[in-house]
């Protein structure tokens, strides 16, 4: 099995392996196999298209958590320039699970804040697998209020399994840190763009996810609880995660349909990790254009629209 490919992508992996093999033979063979390679490449492409046109929620969840998927620091490096990382919450410490700082988006200064999972084991441990502690959320809030003071827009990149459920996190007020961000982000006097780039895990994601536009990359997920957690609570069986994923509707397409997000940012065929450069360009375009759209609103209009958006979420009926 090729670790670059997920289980449901194995037919693609097999084709790709065949193509590699042909290329290898190609060097010392008399037969013209370039035609054959081209044929197989086209086949691989259409196979990928067909597999990716009907992904289940659970398959999307696997893509959202793909180990090679670009993380916040990758986007910060390639979508932005002049990044100056800013550290610490000024109260307790600096949480590496949240990265933030000043940067330019196509020349325009912004405050960018993202959750960072970590690529290798060492970085994963350092970043606590992208699970922020209260210090991380308070750092994020400090940077956001700084952005507000200097009239800079805020761009957040969401990618976390959830806020860290640990003893120290509880001691330092995890609930309060999340709640405070929700309240303050709802009235932050500067444009706020939130994008789920991978995993939008519950309150830990929402704590940097309240803004004027909430977008999701095509194969990211956003949910109130992880499919595994939902399965183990409601089905009493964590193996039912696939069913839970489907029932909750965690994909960008479904959440757009339900009106819970504003935009889906399309990914390259096969997912962001197959062509990161293309993904960086698309995300950069989306962010830049969205900021320009928001520029047309004055601050009162911006805040009223944000408030109405937030308050519109929910379903109920009313009888006498």
């Amino acid at each position, binding site marked *: 099995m090729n670790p670059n490919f997920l289980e449901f992508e194995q037919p693609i992996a097999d084709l790709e392996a065949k193509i590699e093999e042909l290329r290898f033979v190609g060097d010392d063979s008399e037969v013209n196999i370039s035609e054959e390679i081209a044929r197989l490449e086209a086949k691989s492409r259409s196979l990928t298209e067909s597999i990716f046109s009907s992904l289940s929620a659970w398959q999307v969840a696997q893509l959202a958590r793909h180990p090679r998927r670009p993380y916040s620091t990758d986007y910060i490096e390639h979508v932005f320039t002049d990044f100056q990382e800013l550290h610490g919450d000024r109260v307790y410490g600096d949480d590496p699970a949240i990265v933030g700082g000043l940067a330019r988006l196509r020349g325009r200064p912004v405050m960018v804040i993202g959750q960072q999972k970590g690529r290798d084991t060492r970085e994963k441990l350092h970043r606590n697998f992208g699970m922020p502690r209260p210090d991380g959320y308070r750092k994020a809030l400090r940077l956001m209020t700084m952005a507000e003071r200097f009239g800079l827009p805020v761009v957040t990149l969401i990618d976390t399994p959830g806020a860290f459920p640990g003893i120290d*996190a509880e001691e330092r007020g995890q*609930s309060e840190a999340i*709640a405070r961000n929700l309240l303050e982000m709802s*009235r932050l006097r500067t444009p706020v763009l939130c994008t789920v780039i991978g995993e939008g895990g519950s309150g830990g994601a929402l704590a940097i996810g*309240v803004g004027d536009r909430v977008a999701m990359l095509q194969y990211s997920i956003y949910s109130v609880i992880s499919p595994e957690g939902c399965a183990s609570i409601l089905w009493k069986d964590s193996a039912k995660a696939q069913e839970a994923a489907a029932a909750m509707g965690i994909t960008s397409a479904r959440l757009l349909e339900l009106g819970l997000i504003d935009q889906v940012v399309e990914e390259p065929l096969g997912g962001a990790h197959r062509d990161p450069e293309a993904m960086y360009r698309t995300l950069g375009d989306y962010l830049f254009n969205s900021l320009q759209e928001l520029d047309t609103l004055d601050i009162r209009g911006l805040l009223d629209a944000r408030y109405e958006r937030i308050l519109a979420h929910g*379903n*109920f009926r009313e009888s006498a």
Partner: protein
Amino acid sequence: MNWFSKLVPSRIRTDASTKKGVPEGLWSKCGNCQAMLYRPELERNLMVCPKCDEHMRMGARLRLKTFLDEDSGEEIAAGVEPVDVLKFRDSKKYKDRLVAAQKNTGERDALIVMRGRLKGAGVVSAAFEFSFMGGSMGSVVGEKFVRGVNAAIEHREPLVCFSASGGARMQEALFSLMQMAKTSAALARLSDHRLPFISVLTDPTTGGVSASLGMLGDLNVAEPRALIGFAGPRVIQQTVGQTLPEGFQRSEFLLRHGAVDMIVDRRQMRDTLASVLAMLRGEQQQSA
């Protein structure tokens, strides 16, 4: 019953045979000291065990009835009802769970909001009904809370909320998560109007409710020994793989770590909050 059991005072007898004969609803057992308590008496004592001061869980209506001045409460947004737009189904249909919860509790959902008076002064007060699907917050809870905030703003009155909730209602998926943002945004407006919000955290308040409206009080007040936290103790135990310290996530732990302003005995709640609110109103008092 043998001769020995007869010697043991009835309130410390806990075996199954003695439970059998207790008529449903007339007697309640204290979960802490096991004392058998006469229900009407217990309700008069605000569901606090007279033997050991254990603060038992309290229904939302009884809570508001006993917190507000007698017969002063008028319900807000009583007709707001849940709908299952996702057609969510786990081992049971969400629709069936709702019907069962409505039948058991007589409520439409897990939050009751009333406008009334506290020692003569106008107040809007909300209370979670924990026995309605664990007090979980879905669209109806979020909407009713916001209506309560709006009423407080309209009448320039403070808001007092008694929370008791396991968190977000999973059956409403991401809609329930968004109620955290919705309730918090409404509280931002309340605070912009310089009206006080007092969050009373009762046993248990965890997850999405604790991580939104629960922790956003100008004053956060806890009842004694209530379980209050972001993650449930079982999840934390699994994550850290070590035994949790004694009293972890209880009110006293939160007070020590600076998360709540005070711990107030339920029987002093009216006095304490009335006094605090009068001072926040800037009310002058003749010095003695």
